[in-house]
């Protein structure tokens, strides 16, 4: 990443990895690299928060280490775990040995199961660490991340503290389903990823679905933008508009008109109530039932 010396080169590098970063995103990625701070990307689902980490990994050729968060995630799943069964077997085969020898034997790296956070820190070459949907873990588990994000080190009582040999590039994503702790936010650079403008969404569509005619991409972006203006339960995300573009291509649609929109609305919207509402609002001709 040594060549990432300014936001413009970053933007180009990300673009070649298939990610269209706006000026702000590029700036924040640049700062994260310069300051060695994690990025906290927040925003609605499916606007490319995770994709940002993937693109950074691809653009820099680094390995991606991913920690998917969920309720109930604990140390054993995030940091490391002792391979309990292997230890038991070891004890049984070594029966008759003195405890002192044995203890030194079974608490070694051979018996350590690396989980994503430890893996990212112990990796000899720099990695991109993606901590996905961090808002899903409980507040208590969040504290676990603090040591890692702060000093890039992990303490295993039996082995001592392991520090990162190389500094990982860290991206945390959050769907904002709950307020993250101040302590965590303070350590991160904050990046709000919202829905793109019509113009940018068109560009994204064109880069992700290269076979798409330009006129149609524009039209799709406009329809999606109009739908996002209608208050629905789950507004269509960028990934859904890409899906829609692919669907329309597969159906060999020439012009996106009301009829075809009505017929394929279920690709964009995931609730029947939303589909009904949007059809009504955009006065689409739905098929007679």
């Amino acid at each position, binding site marked *: 990443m040594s060549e990432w010396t300014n936001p413009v080169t970053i933007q180009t590098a990300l673009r070649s990895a298939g990610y269209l970063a706006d000026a702000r995103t590029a700036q924040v990625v640049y700062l994260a690299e310069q300051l060695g701070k994690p990025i906290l990307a927040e925003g609605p689902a499916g606007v490319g928060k995770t994709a940002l980490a993937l693109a950074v990994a691809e653009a820099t050729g680094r390995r991606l280490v991913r920690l998917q968060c969920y309720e109930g995630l604990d140390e054993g799943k995030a940091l490391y775990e002792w391979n309990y069964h292997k230890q038991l077997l070891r004890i049984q085969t070594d029966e008759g040995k003195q405890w002192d020898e044995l203890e030194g034997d079974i608490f070694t790296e051979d018996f350590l199961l690396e989980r994503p956070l430890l893996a990212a820190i112990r990796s000899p070459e720099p990695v991109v660490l993606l901590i996905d949907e961090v808002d899903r873990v409980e507040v208590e588990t969040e504290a676990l991340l603090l040591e890692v994000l702060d000093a890039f080190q992990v303490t295993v009582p039996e082995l001592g503290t392991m520090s990162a040999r190389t500094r990982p590039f860290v991206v945390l994503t959050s769907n904002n389903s709950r307020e993250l702790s101040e302590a965590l936010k*303070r350590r991160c650079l904050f990046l709000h990823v919202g829905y793109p403008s019509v113009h940018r969404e068109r560009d994204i569509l064109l880069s992700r679905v290269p076979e798409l005619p330009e006129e149609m991409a524009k039209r799709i972006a406009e329809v999606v933008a109009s739908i996002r203006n209608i208050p629905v339960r789950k507004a269509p995300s960028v990934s859904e508009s890409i899906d829609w573009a692919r669907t329309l291509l597969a159906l060999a649609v020439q012009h996106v008109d009301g009829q075809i929109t009505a017929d394929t609305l279920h690709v964009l919207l995931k609730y029947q109530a939303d589909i009904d509402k949007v059809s009504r609002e955009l006065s689409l001709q739905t098929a007679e039932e």
Partner: protein
Amino acid sequence: MLIGLTDFADELREIGIPVSMVEVLDAADALRHVDLGDRTAVHAAMAATMVKNARHQDAFDLAFDVFFGLRPPPPSPTTELHGPADGADTAEGSSGGGSPADVSDLFEALVGALATGDQHALSALARRAVDRLSGFQPGRPVGGRYYLYRVMHRLDVDRLRSRLVEGLLAADDELGVDDELTTRLAVDTADRRIGAFRTEVEAEILRRLVQDRGPEAVSQTLRRPLVEDLDLMHATREELAMIADRIAPLARRLASRMSARRRRGQHGRLDVRRTIRRSLAHGGALLDPQWKPRRINKPELVMLCDVSGSMATFARFTMQLTYAIGHQFSNVRAFAFIDGIDEVTRFFAPGEDFEHAMARIAEEAQLIRHDGHSDYGTALECFTTEFFDAVTPSSTVIITGDARNNYRPTGEERLAKIADRARALLWINPEAKRYWDTGDSVMSRYGALCDGVFEVRTLRQLERFVESVALSRVKGLVPIS
């Protein structure tokens, strides 16, 4: 620079955005790495280090514009393209006015720029429009809104919009598509572009205000409460929409907190018999302790919401809350009342649209018995006769309302009955505490029977209520998974 930065941080704190000292240091650190001449870069650096909440973004942007608002001189080639040179009109420009010819000139140029969506041309036109049409007077103590109104009014936005839509549709016609969707898209596109122009004009006016009066004075007049501090009783339509966006995460948070609690609570006491039987597999070593599942009681949540006219805004909000909670939990029953009461749970089934649900409640639910003014006494009476089975010893009852009873019988004994049977009775009042018991409010008479009465005038207070009070009392709601 550093002094500017601390002043700016102070301003952010004044607005209500929490900026810690560490974050100011981070901002200073980040600024060392960016080109200080590049406004976007400076903005991004400051925003990423000092604003950690998407809700505060707009307030931050405004403050940033006020403090660091002096933009680079305009790239002028586009200005010359559309109309006479700027030198001529600056003389009479700032004094206001602007002849009708000027206006129509501007109008035509604007139609052209909007049709192509040319950003540079739009900024230049915004500057010219403010020059000629706002009648900007230095030192005059009016807010930016006044000037904005003047400019947009004189430009005749409605006509602008219809011209733009026509133009867009004509372009579409060439492609051979023509249906209602196309029209709708053209209208939306026109609105979006005019909105962008409006933002430009606003920014331009702001820039002039700051030049005239200095950043501190301007930011003081522009300060607006953050979403979480808006008064729920008197929120505007836009504000309510912003508030609504915040309610769903709150309900989700409630749900995730609950389910975490339930999961943790699943380990009960040690099951000795099963543990020993398991140990036989390991030669008698007690490796794998077994636990008895804990008995989970399933308390319910019962919401009684006053939806009378005086509560209209707040009622919408409580209904939204009920709707959000109803989507997360299965054992919630919701009732709405004015002077009659009816169950509204069925309208809030998962998948139902909120607006649709509200419309159905207005049409189908029997909320009015007599005159349509709130009558807590009658409502409570109906509730205890018709729906009393909803209340069980494991239910928490939450009543939302201002307890303004129009001087009618209070029906306290009915409330006492509910309080007796329920596990907890909580009251949320959207009025400021100092107005309780004034006029026809009988809050303290009801309050005496409740386990807790809470002033909830803002989202912040609601969050506190949910976190501290509701969570401790409404244990074991069953999340819909």
